[in-house]
């Protein structure tokens, strides 16, 4: 995904994501709690310092998401529709990351080719770990 398209998607996502963050969260959303989201699978791969740097850089690249709620909302909004239905089992965050790669929803941060979801997770990590 090129940068412009990525930003478009992000902006749209942020709008849609206003719903759960404003008190209408579903049970499925609960599985994506802030603590879980802020622990990207990248941590054991790259180490905490590298993930924190990625997160900081991501927030610079996408200033519209330089807030905890905006990041969480963007991640939740990127879920497929089925995961927003309370009685359906949604995908894990790991599955979302794999799906990002398959669909080309990637972003290069600090040189790393990352799924947009894990890049946002890294940003959350950098904010919560600071």
């Amino acid at each position, binding site marked *: 995904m090129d940068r412009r398209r990525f930003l478009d998607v992000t902006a749209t996502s942020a709008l849609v994501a206003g719903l759960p963050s404003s008190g209408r969260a579903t049970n499925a959303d609960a599985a994506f709690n802030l603590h879980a989201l802020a622990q990207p699978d990248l941590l054991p*791969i790259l180490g905490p310092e590298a993930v924190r740097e990625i997160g900081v850089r991501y927030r610079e690249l996408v200033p519209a998401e330089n807030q905890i709620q905006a990041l969480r909302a963007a991640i939740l909004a990127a879920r497929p529709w089925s995961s927003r239905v309370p009685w359906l089992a949604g995908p894990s965050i790991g599955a979302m990351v*794999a799906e990002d*790669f*398959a669909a080309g929803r*990637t972003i*290069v941060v600090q*040189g*790393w*080719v*990352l799924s947009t979801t894990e890049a946002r997770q890294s940003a959350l990590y950098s904010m919560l770990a600071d």
Partner: protein
Amino acid sequence: MHIDARTLPNGSVLEADLCIVGAGAAGISMALEWIGSPRTVLLLEGGGLEYEPAMQDLYRGEIVGLPYYPLQAARLHYFGGTTGHWAGFCSPLDPIDFDKRDWVPHSGWPLRRKELDPFYARAQPLLELGPYEYTAGDWQRRDPTLVPLPLDPRVMWTKMWQFSPPTRFGARYRDAVIGARNVHLYTHANVCELEANESLGAVDGLRVRTLDGKQHRARARYYVLACCSIQNARLLLASNRRTPTGLGNAHDLVGRFFMEHIEIPGGHLALALSGPVNTKLYAFEFGQTKARGELALSAAVQRERRILNGTVSLEPGAPGEVAKSTFQWGTPERLAALRKWQANGKVGPPPDGLPEPAPAGAPRFFHLVTRQEQAPNPDSRVMLSTERDALDMPRAKLAWRLTELDRRSFRVFYEVMGRELGRSGVGRVQLLDWVRRDDGTWPGTLSGGWHHMGTTRMHDNPRLGVVDATCRVHGLDNLYVAGASVYPTGGAANPTLTLVALSLRLSDHLKRALA
């Protein structure tokens, strides 16, 4: 039979049915094919049986265009040629490499991969390789611990290499060549000019010089230039007494389309798979490994993204380390030390620079080192310098030049690889800063692999190629070219296996011609 040309009376005339100029991998592979045949073969080698600085200096040349490696150190000028310091990497070109690709100007061979397959198979034992089997599955059947990474074959695949010991042709085949009664090896016999006949339709003889001032003449029914890509072009261009642009150069193609493989680190891989990950299939230990895999993009992805072919090897390392390019690692001094160590029977510890033993434990971090095809480019070329060597022959002048397609292909490869290794859960890919840049520039570490190709390219149309599909020079009835200089494109495979295969194919053709 072996004769040092310096011991011949001045003005000697050497005659045979076939004359092969150059005793490297191509020339020796051909000569071996003729041992015991009823035909006589002249094998003319400019150097001696061993390395000599004065002979090597004849390969010194001028470099313009992109920075390049010193020409006198990039090739070897003695019996056995550059196999005296090659690393033994062998792999066939891929089928797509032979295709005319509309996004790669000047691409397309006048033959198909399947036509070369029987010759690849024949080349394997000459290079002391295993069977002609080049899929990861072939090698996994032999050794179940060689497991390919779980990639989507529609996107990426594991291209296999086999490793020659490496065969030093000079040492390995010296006795066979010298012992052959019908193969006459002349060393210190530097061919300085090809003389065409009156009609300029055939070669009439070769001017041969020695460093001590003697001049001889060689005559044969058929001639094969098997010097190397730079020297083949230099010799044709310098044969300009009767045709000012040189022999075989009616369409200004000789020397053009010089190609290398771009061999340079481009990024890193951090494994994501949990637990110890078996990457043995991708590991390489000089002199030990028989086969290994490198990561390649599928032909479908190359077509879709309109990029060149290429592969990436996995070199175990650590974050923060800076991997070296081929030219950075193999400095002339280091290569000289390695050559000396080998010539002395590898007695004592190896010189500084041999690969370090792999660290204990399964590696989880790798440098990604690319070997990428170079787009055929008429402006990337070998010319004649105004400077002359000790034999009064114009030195070579090399202008290595790359295109936007080379640069874009490099970046796209890493982006696609990053996505596929992420999707498959193998790991995460990091692109080096310069790879991410979109300004078309190359880093200061830019490097080739000492793989010189393309200066007498093959094409059925004389306006588009120097040699035809049989490797005969267009317009000259009895002059052929062997070696990587005939490649229209270079793929991502090291050139030696293919050039030996083509030499065997040419040998068969000439046997039929002389029958």
